[in-house]
């Protein structure tokens, strides 16, 4: 056949056009930055001229590699933080899977009470910014090391040891609880779809309850657990705010905090190299995960109708356990919020005398004697600018990422199995493995100058939108692939037969049918960017700052009351929005992650 006709025929199919366009754009926005980061690890940066003698900025050098991996200070700047990071990520995975998986089992397989409430409460730690819990931890458990003691000491008079207040222990607990909803959603999804007959068959064959869990249930949810490990490990590894809040007081360093210090300080070369190491670790985990799941043991037949699950009867433990679970959930979700609320009304935290309460931090005009005369949250025009920026940014990101995710889903499912589709699938997931702050750093260096048709974006709002869209594409494309995959191709083909145009098929058939899934592809990026900090922290300028970066600044200054008030603000906005979208459309984040 004539090659020109070949090409024409290829591009007559909308999925092919989308495929080619998306791959081109993503290569530009993901792969090229990756090369640029590798390049940056071999370059002399202007702030390093003092140390790398006799060079000019931009020269080739192996200085960074040598001093990170084999230098005098390697242990302090790299190996120790690396070890901390890996250990934290590992333990975080463990905590997340145990609590999330355990709760998923309780909710789907037993007759525990308050299932609805438990479900919604359990998602909260994920919707809330990760450092909410970290700050709550500080509120309760900080000791004299940083100013006023926490509530625990105030109420009980017991002094708390450093290891309990700061560093490794609280970081893993907080991250573990924050990512437990991942495990809950992923494992719960499998448990819900898993054919109950599989367990009943074992029951009939006289298998004990624990043996059923060990031999039947666990192996079948193993793929979901592996996915959880992948997601949680990568997320925990690139978490910045939590280790920054909880680790700094005892100089507990992880890779991300090192990254922030080096990139913001005088040795960006180190930073780029650390970022590269993190990306490599993430990639290795992804590949291991794929290898494990791709083994011969086919899990394909796991799903089935599970209409009549017979629930495990908890008998006399039912009420006790239900209440305990509920109480515990309240403790990690509602209580922190209340503590923020209370503290935002206290002039100095920890004192509950009547004259210590004030509405200053909410409504005050700003008193020169308190916190540099900053006006209260609700009167502070910077707060409103930040809020407006946050919302505007999140809406744009959600629209762009959601649409792109849907297109990715459409073309990947349509061309399923082809090499191009697989590449797009992987490429669109890749940003997940890029640590947010490293990603921010790359964009900072890449778009500081004009590149091709893209003008210099430094300090602009557009660069925030761009990076958010790419960073959250993985969520959106998972949701998109899910939505289109579940639909099956016949429904669209039925419309093709009638000659309905592609645009109409999408808008009138595919999107309406899979409304809930599609919407969750929009909802996830929105929520994620509302509470994102590390991705934006290197890129914002005073005019483009968002609520979270303001919060970070208040925190660094030690203005806890403002920080608490802002957290409350963000959580309320996100939770309310999630609830509204959920009510109106039926979409919810658990549908998006449940792959």
């Amino acid at each position: 056949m004539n090659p020109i006709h070949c090409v024409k025929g290829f591009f007559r199919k909308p999925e092919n056009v989308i495929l080619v366009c998306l791959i081109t754009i993503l290569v530009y926005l993901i792969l090229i930055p990756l090369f640029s980061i590798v390049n940056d690890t071999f370059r002399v940066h202007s702030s390093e001229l003092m140390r790398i003698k006799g060079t000019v900025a931009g020269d080739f050098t192996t200085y960074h590699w040598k001093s990170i991996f084999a230098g005098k200070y390697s242990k302090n700047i790299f190996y120790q933080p690396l070890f901390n990071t890996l250990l934290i990520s590992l333990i975080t995975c463990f905590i997340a899977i145990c609590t999330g998986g355990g709760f998923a089992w309780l909710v789907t397989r037993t007759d525990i009470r308050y299932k609805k409430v438990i479900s919604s409460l359990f998602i909260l730690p994920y919707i809330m910014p990760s450092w909410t819990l970290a700050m709550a931890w500080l509120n309760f458990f900080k000791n004299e090391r940083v100013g006023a003691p926490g509530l625990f000491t105030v109420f009980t008079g017991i002094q708390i040891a450093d290891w309990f207040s700061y560093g490794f222990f609280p970081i893993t607990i907080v991250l573990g609880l924050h990512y437990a909803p991942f495990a809950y959603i992923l494992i719960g999804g499998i448990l819900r779809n898993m054919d109950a007959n599989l367990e009943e068959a074992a029951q009939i064959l006289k298998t004990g309850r624990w043996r059923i869990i060990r031999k039947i249930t666990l192996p079948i949810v193993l793929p979901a657990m592996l996915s959880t490990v992948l997601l949680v490990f990568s997320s925990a590894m690139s978490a910045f705010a939590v280790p920054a809040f909880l680790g700094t007081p005892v100089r507990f360093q992880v890779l991300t905090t090192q990254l922030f210090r080096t990139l913001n300080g005088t040795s960006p070369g180190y930073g780029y190299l650390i970022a590269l190491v993190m990306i490599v670790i993430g990639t290795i985990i992804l590949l291991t995960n794929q290898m494990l799941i791709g083994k011969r043991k086919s899990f394909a037949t796991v799903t089935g109708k599970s209409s009549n699950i017979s629930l495990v009867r908890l008998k006399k433990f039912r009420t006790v356990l239900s209440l305990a679970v509920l109480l515990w959930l309240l403790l990690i979700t509602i209580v922190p919020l209340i503590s923020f609320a209370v503290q935002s009304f206290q002039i100095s935290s920890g004192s509950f005398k009547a004259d210590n309460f004030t509405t200053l931090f909410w409504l005050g005009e700003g008193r020169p004697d308190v916190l540099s005369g900053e006006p209260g949250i609700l009167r502070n025009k910077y707060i409103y600018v930040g809020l407006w920026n946050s919302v505007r940014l999140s809406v744009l990101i959600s629209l762009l990422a959601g649409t792109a995710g849907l297109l990715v889903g459409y073309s990947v499912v349509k061309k399923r199995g082809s090499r191009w589709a697989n590449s797009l699938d992987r490429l669109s997931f890749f940003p997940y493995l890029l640590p947010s702050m490293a990603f921010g750093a790359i964009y900072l260096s890449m778009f500081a100058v004009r590149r091709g048709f893209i003008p210099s974006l430094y300090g602009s709002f557009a660069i925030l939108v761009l990076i958010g869209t790419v960073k959250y594409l993985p969520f959106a494309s998972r949701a998109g692939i899910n939505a289109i995959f579940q639909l099956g191709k016949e429904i669209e083909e039925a419309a093709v037969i009638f000659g309905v145009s592609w645009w109409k098929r999408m808008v009138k058939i595919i999107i309406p049918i899979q409304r809930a899934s599609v919407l969750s592809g929009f909802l996830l990026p929105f929520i994620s960017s509302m509470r994102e900090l590390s991705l934006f922290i290197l890129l914002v300028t005073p005019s483009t700052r968002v609520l979270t970066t303001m919060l970070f600044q208040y925190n660094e200054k030690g203005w806890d009351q403002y920080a608490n008030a802002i957290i409350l603000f963000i959580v309320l906005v996100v939770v309310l929005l999630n609830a509204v979208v959920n009510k109106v459309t039926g979409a919810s984040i658990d549908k998006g992650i449940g792959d």
Partner: protein
Amino acid sequence: MPEIRIENVTKKFGKFVAVENLTITIKDKWFVTLLGPSGCGKTTTLRMISGLESPTEGKIYIDDVLVFSAAEGIDLPPAKRDVGFLFQNYALWPHMTVSQNISFGLENLKWNRTDIDCRVQDLTELLKIDEFLGRYPAELSGGQQQRVAIARTLAPRPKVLFMDEPLSNLDAKLRMEMRAELKRLHRETNSTFVYVTHDQLEAMTLSSRICLMKEGRVQQYAAPLDIYNGPSNLFCAEFVGNPTMNFIEVACLQTEPGRISLTSDDLNFTFAPVSPQPKVTAGQNLVLGLRPESVLLSEKGSIHGTIYSALPSGMETTVMVKTGNSLLTSVVFGGQDFPVDGWTGVELNHDNYILFDKSSGENIATGTLTVALREGGV
């Protein structure tokens, strides 16, 4: 000896009654089939007997042991009831190989390894799946998966075996083979089988008793041929038999001992019961049921009709005949074809015609028929 007694068992899902007041006894070594349209409560019944579901009311005995009693709060778990269960969708464990699937139940019973291997070997040879021992379920065809499921269920030698539509996913040929296999297994294993299906042919050919259900209630519990020849009501008559029974709506003209005169749109019948004389009154609405093989086509038939359609299958031909306003189905044995729109006579000279009461649907009598075209009729 495992005898299963179900007494007044009712199952409600919320307000919805899935099974209502079920009382049946399943004797040792019987092959009982639960038959009925979709949603009539077959699976629910099976799950209740095996202990996977708890009834709302009633009692269940297995082997004279009270395994469930709502009043006394007794509810033995499935493991204690010593039963086997073959699931409709096989429920093979996807992460275990064929041999792991089969030996799992035996490991639970703490059999030693050599005995387990022996048993697996025997069963897989019996079911002709010994070459797939190392494969995972996803790597087997539907029929092979099913045989693995059967082997897994049979392995611990359960005295009672429950099977939920085990053949529904198979192609016609494999289904025939497996039916024969199941019947042989039933003999060889000496156990009691309770079998669920909505395929009436399967029920007819396999079972020693059929329990015919509709909307959660038992319609008839009897041997297959008894149901075929003496359906207790219109539902049973219609559900069992293929092609289905012919039904002619009639009204009673007059009744005298040994004779009931009936009239339809255009035919007059005289019904002579061979069973005890039923109570009918003049003017009562009735339904006549005629099995297709009892509707004979012959030249000397007393009524006439035209061939509406003829479906020869080789062994027999299903012919639909239009007489007056009604269509009658007849089965003619032998590879014979009939010209459509051709003329034929119809003869009703058997003694197994059934009279049903129209309003209650109950079977009220069986007997012979003589027919005449009504004067002034077509």
